[in-house]
């Protein structure tokens, strides 16, 4: 069925009502779908990572630039579902799925997932789950990148063993990665999804001006 949506002021149905907090079934299932899809991507990325890991490690800290690929699930889920807990939930589901398939990091993936999700969640919560502008999304990605960078240099098998100045490079590249991959890419993906009409049941799918 053709979608005729207009964002201009009109007898808006629910656009002006206060956003609901409770998760509907469609929120849970779609967040899970995004999480599962991201989990598969995480796993595939981990597989691809082996080869590049060795090469990039000779770059002395710059391997943090890849971290964004593990962070976008939370940000994407958060900005699509737009409810408290969405970022954490989606990121955790993605982590669990990649764990189930099998990665070299095993269970630590789950713990990292929780922290990564929380980082994005905190940013979204700071804006009271009301602002979804590009700047907020980029910030969420950046903070997630910072969080995983710090986690890695403390606990992770590879980054914790780096020399201090290398660790600084690591965290910095992780932050950039979070900004670009988890922030910008997620924003673009959400916008693309909204335009294709896939988000009809979500507030995030109704604010684009597609007029036909």
């Amino acid at each position: 069925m053709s979608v005729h949506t207009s964002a201009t002021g009109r007898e808006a149905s629910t656009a002006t009502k206060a956003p609901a907090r409770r998760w509907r079934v469609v929120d849970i299932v779609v967040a899970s779908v995004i999480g599962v899809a991201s989990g598969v991507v995480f796993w595939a990325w981990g597989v691809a990572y082996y080869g590049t890991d060795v090469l990039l490690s000779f770059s002395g800290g710059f391997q943090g630039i890849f971290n964004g690929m593990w962070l976008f699930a939370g940000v994407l889920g958060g900005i699509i579902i737009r409810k408290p807990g969405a970022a954490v939930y989606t990121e955790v589901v993605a982590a669990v799925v990649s764990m189930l398939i099998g990665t070299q990091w095993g269970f630590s993936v789950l713990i990292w997932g929780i922290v990564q999700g929380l980082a994005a969640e905190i940013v979204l919560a700071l804006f009271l789950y009301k602002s979804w502008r590009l700047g907020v999304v980029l910030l969420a990605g950046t903070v997630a990148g910072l969080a995983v960078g710090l986690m890695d240099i403390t606990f992770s098998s590879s980054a914790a063993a780096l020399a201090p100045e290398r660790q600084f490079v690591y965290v910095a590249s992780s932050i950039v990665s979070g900004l670009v991959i988890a922030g910008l890419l997620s924003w673009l993906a959400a916008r693309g999804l909204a335009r294709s009409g896939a988000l009809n049941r979500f507030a995030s799918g109704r604010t684009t001006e597609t007029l036909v």
Partner: protein
Amino acid sequence: MSILATIETTGVVSRVNPVAKLLAALVIAIVLLLSIDWVSAGTALVLELLLLPWAGLTARQLVVRTLPLWIAAPSSVLVTAVYGRDEGAVLVDWQVISVTEGSLSLAAAIGLRILAVGIPGIVLLATTDPTDLADGLGQVLRLPARFVLGALAGLRLVGLFMDDWRQLALARRARGVADSGGPIGALRRFGQQAFALLVLSVRRGSKLATAMEAKGFGSDEPRTWARPSVLGGRDIVLVALGAAVAAAAVTAAVVAGTWAFVLA
């Protein structure tokens, strides 16, 4: 997707409650991650290898499933040896590469830890059916059923993803765009295909949500569970074993004096 398929085994472990398996692996992982030293990781690894026969996996299944570990561990060892924190006697010093006694022992610790943390997780979960895990999370841990089952439904849709991916690839050839642009073009196409898959999946997810709601799912009213999930003796034993492995690892490291708490 064969990677995701649960391995059916007759080993004891397959009859253990998934929640117990989860807890056992989690205990080991958390404890081991608190320190980077070869004694704790090595002890845990040895104990795990001793317990491996009870998992019921054939050697081949084992190798295939833990393959990521066998690739990651050596490469991490190499990287750490070369780039790791330097202490003690210097063995090699050439431009940015420096290998010292300290970095070597660190490398050994890292390699062992990867294996020690990874093996229980992979082995225990390879024999777990997702539906059973969901039943366990809902009944044993009393996690909200809406989230657990909603996530399970989302997970099920993964199987359809793979067929879609193949269709998407063929369609791109039919549209004449499967080979333009070299490596950058390939990356862009990958991204486009991944995005198309995301769109299809979200739509399918929305439809599934409606179907689930029509079956009464989603309200806060109490529900029953068709498949019972309880923690029995066998399950407690597994968790205890996990705790024992972790405790043994810590004790050995403290006694040997190599325990290096990461947060210190």
